[in-house]
């Protein structure tokens, strides 16, 4: 929230968002199947990126774990997909991620940010190893088959997750907790001295962000039909949301959205032709963004608009 209340600009953006959602919701009716599949992928990246930003954006605590929660969601779908209805599987995927995130947060968020980053870095590998060991030693299988779901259903589930996420992100940002999260990023010690329970706020926010990553994983698993610990826990999915958020710009909520849309589309274009080159390019984009785009694409746009404004009024 800001003391400025709802400005005309954020109403404008909200309007755009509603328009986008309506367009998307009706798209399977008139768009060809491959477009629906593309849109699902893009929505998936938007969900991962925006949910990452809910916590890591304002507080500055860099989580390198989106792949871990995404993978947990995938495995939930693989394990429970035959036994439970789809909606339950997706929700449980989100819940398991929530619980794991609570535990991770409880251990690491009492300490300096570097410990949190370090811990989350290896988390995806840890869970991968644990599941691998479990499959080799306990169940004797390697990998699982996931239930098959048609593309239109996958798209709509992802769309619902996306809408719920945007609503959550919007409400957190506008609430007093959003303001408190920002103050934690500004000066955590001062924040705790004015009555903010910084540890609890951090842990809960981090856990909330994990819900959506887990839910997204659960639904996307149905697209891949066969998964094993290597497929489900892929370090690329820790890197890409972080890259997209930084590339887009973390100041506003539409920054990560924009970053995810642009880079997800780019990935689709390059994926089939240049499998390793596109990740190489993304690595380069990350380094360039850190060096030259401190506020991402959004920051760049704002800078140009300000400069245009100054130039326009230069003679007054």
């Amino acid at each position, binding site marked *: *929230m*800001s*003391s*400025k209340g709802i400005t005309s600009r954020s109403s404008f953006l909200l309007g755009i968002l509603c328009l986008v959602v309506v367009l998307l919701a009706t798209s399977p009716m008139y768009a060809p199947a491959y477009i629906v599949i593309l849109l699902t992928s893009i929505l998936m990246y938007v969900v991962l990126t925006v949910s990452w930003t809910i916590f890591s954006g304002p507080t500055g605590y860099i989580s390198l774990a989106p792949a871990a929660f995404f993978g947990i969601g995938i495995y939930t779908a693989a394990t429970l997909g035959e036994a439970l209805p789809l909606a339950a599987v997706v929700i449980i995927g989100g819940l398991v991620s929530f619980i794991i995130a609570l535990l991770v947060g409880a251990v690491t968020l009492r300490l300096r940010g570097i410990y949190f980053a370090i811990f989350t870095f290896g988390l995806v590998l840890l869970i991968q190893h644990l599941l691998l060991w479990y499959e080799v030693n306990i169940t004797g299988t390697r990998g699982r088959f996931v239930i098959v779901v048609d593309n239109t259903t996958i798209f709509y589930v992802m769309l619902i997750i996306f809408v719920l996420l945007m609503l959550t992100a919007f409400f957190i940002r506008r609430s*007093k907790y959003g*303001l*408190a999260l*920002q*103050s934690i990023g*500004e*000066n955590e*010690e*001062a*924040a*705790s*001295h*004015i*009555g*903010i*329970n*910084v540890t609890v706020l951090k842990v809960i926010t981090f856990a909330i962000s994990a819900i959506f990553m887990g839910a997204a994983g659960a639904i996307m698993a149905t697209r891949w039909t066969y998964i094993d610990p290597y497929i489900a826990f892929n370090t690329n999915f820790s890197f890409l949301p972080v890259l997209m958020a930084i590339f887009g710009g973390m100041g506003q909520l539409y920054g990560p959205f924009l970053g995810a849309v642009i880079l997800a589309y780019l990935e689709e274009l390059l994926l089939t032709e240049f499998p390793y080159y596109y990740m190489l390019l993304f690595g380069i984009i990350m380094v360039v963004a850190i060096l030259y785009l401190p506020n991402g694409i959004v920051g760049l746009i704002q800078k140009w608009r300000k400069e245009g404004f100054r130039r326009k009024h230069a003679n007054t």
Partner: protein
Amino acid sequence: MPILEGYQVTKNFGGLTAVAHVDFNVEQGEILGLIGPNGAGKTTLFNLISGALTLKSGAIKFKDKTISGLRPHQICRMGIARTFQSIKIFANMSALDNVLLGSLFGPKSVMSTNEASAKATELLDFMELSNSKNTPAKDLTLVNQKKLEVARALATKPELLLLDELMAGLNPTEVIHAMELVKSIRAKGITIIMIEHVMKAIMNICDRIMVLHHGEKIAEGTPHDIATSKRIIEVYLGE
């Protein structure tokens, strides 16, 4: 009954004893000065009271309840607020948002957003910062940043306010205004402990003064007592 009591408060950092067996009492409604050479342990004592650091031994009680061992946000909600030697405002947030956060999270009983907003605006007026309501805190002058930090602390509705070197970096006119500010805060019924190096301020507004040196309390008394104490003069001039 004293509003704040400290019994044999001790804190070490590795081999270094920062605060050594300090006993103190602060009466409700008084202004207590805390002075001593640099490194005497004054800010450490503040950190121990506010919960930023944990005591090695001893105890601190606020309104007869033990607070040593509680976390800063809990101690704030109980009624103790502070400012910091190196100003810790929320640099990229507006002045209003800085104070608003204090109103929203600091007081014992939770307020609605509208009430908190009104309170915050009121406090900015009291501090003569209304013109800078929407200015990012980092763009304020040093004096205004200090005033902002005080406003934010007051927003948490404290009964005890800890001021850490409020006057540092202020010119003589600003020091006089700051002194008036401290007196007007006390007039609201808030007890104040202030760490200061500006002797004029300490001598003029404090009811009592406590002197720390190498972590130990070496003297305590009225400004007159302290000003005429040979030991204190030695300590300050000898350093």
